[in-house]
């Protein structure tokens, strides 16, 4: 489904991703683990076109999307819920969600049942339904995070990229986010997940990659990584 080969990316002259290769098979959840500054967000940005990769190739569903602009990549079916939520503050919750479906409402992707999907997102996140008419900028952090996820889902994506969906949330809400990720997985949605709670991420994921200083240090089935002593020591210590 999503294939990344020998990806390099840089900010200015400083290269932060060195030769990353990873794969997200259809219907699977893959998680990317790594400490702060390892390059998880940068990987996602390079995949979704927010920054141009400086080398390597990325393909979605067999289609080469390397170097395309983010709007073209979205229309190719890749949804990215970015780090820091990035909701449209002056627009209502409903408008934010509808914009998630922009390619379906205009051109580039099959329209399908946008209103039905909107109803399903509201079902998944009842809080958003209560706040449907409210400006997104006035939502709480947790609600904004749900909105960012819901907005990405509205694309009806081939692949969903989630960058730290639990960032800054209260413990109870963190559990809720992981419950929702599991539910999305049950619906067969293909996902690449970055999470600070590595143990919980490996719990829900099928496969995992460990990123260290912009390189893939190791990878394997999620269950196997969970039991790996080195991974345990470095990433599964006190968290969660």
């Amino acid at each position, binding site marked *: 489904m999503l294939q990344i080969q020998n990806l390099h990316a840089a900010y200015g002259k400083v290269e932060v991703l060195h030769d990353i290769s990873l794969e997200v098979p259809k219907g699977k959840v893959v998680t990317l683990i790594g400490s702060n500054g390892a390059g998880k967000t940068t990987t996602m940005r390079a995949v*979704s*076109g*927010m920054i141009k990769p400086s080398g390597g190739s990325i393909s979605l569903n067999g289609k080469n999307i390397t170097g395309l*602009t*983010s*709007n073209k990549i*979205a*229309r190719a079916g890749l*949804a*990215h819920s*970015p780090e820091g939520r*990035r*909701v*449209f*503050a*002056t*627009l209502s919750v409903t*408008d934010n969600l*509808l*914009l*998630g479906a*922009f*390619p379906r*409402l*205009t051109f*580039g*992707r099959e329209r399908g049942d946008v209103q039905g999907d909107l109803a399903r997102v509201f079902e998944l996140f009842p809080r958003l339904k209560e706040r449907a008419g409210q400006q997104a900028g006035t939502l709480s952090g947790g609600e904004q995070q749900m909105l960012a996820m819901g*907005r990405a889902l509205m*694309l009806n994506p081939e692949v969903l990229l989630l960058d730290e969906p639990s960032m800054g949330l209260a413990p109870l809400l963190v559990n809720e986010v992981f419950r929702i990720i599991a539910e999305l997985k049950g619906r067969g949605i293909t996902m690449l997940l970055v999470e600070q709670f590595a143990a919980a991420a490996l719990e829900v994921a099928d496969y995992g990659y460990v990123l260290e200083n912009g390189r893939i240090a190791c990878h394997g089935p999620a269950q196997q990584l969970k039991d790996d002593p080195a991974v345990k020591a470095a990433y599964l210590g006190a968290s969660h």
Partner: protein
Amino acid sequence: MEILAQLIVSGIALGMIYALIAFGYQLTFATSGTLNFGQGEALMLGALVGLTLVGHMSYWLMIPLVLVFGALQGIFVERVGVQPAIKTKSEFGWIMTTISLAIIFKNVAENIWGHDDITFPSPLPTEPLQFMGIRVLPMEILVVVGALAIMLAVELFNRKSIYGKAVVATSNDRDAAGLMGINTGMVITFSYALSSMTAAFAGVLVAPLTLTGATMGVVLGLKAFAVAIIGGLNSGMGVIVGGLILGIAETTTGYYVSTGYKDVPGLLLLLLVLAIKPAGMFGKSVIKKV
């Protein structure tokens, strides 16, 4: 008292023209953080193209053509002057390019339409209407109605259509808008088209009330800029109120003090606003995004 009322009425029409040009400044600032310093010239070109067209057709038929012309002119400015500056992340490049293009437009207009001011035939009766002793030109009413109509149309487009929402999303967060599949480069080009279109429209609205000529845009563009700053670069209500304040300050000062000083109160107000509330009287202060 009657004189004051009269001055206010005349100031309103003038103020709405300022508001309309200032509205154009806001449109491009919202999506791209850049301004077209040739807004006055876009107005001037609209008025002169309109003048040429009314030689062949009615004023009302001319308006849609001028709107199309204005949009194309805006696209040209964005493609030639602004887009390269945004692409190279040049922080101030667009200031120089839009000013340069404005000068070029003025020179071209002087070569085509000459240096002298020309009278623009009024499409409406030039006899003022009387309301309780106050005289109002039908053209002044058209200015107010026309300006409000186009601003309302843009507002409705932004609120109701998915494309309008895409414009607002781009203003909110350009990168995130890109992730939604919105071609934000196109949105910025579109905002320039819309901005120059409103200026060209302002040109054919104001032309029958003033004289038309290659230099007519310079002062109007500058004053509208003051209005955009006074009202706030991100407040639709702000430009209307700011425009009206400036327009009325101008007509009243012109009468009670001297026409030589008519621009002073507006500029004083500008300095005052900049000192006290730099985001504008109605502006929401925006934390500069990185």
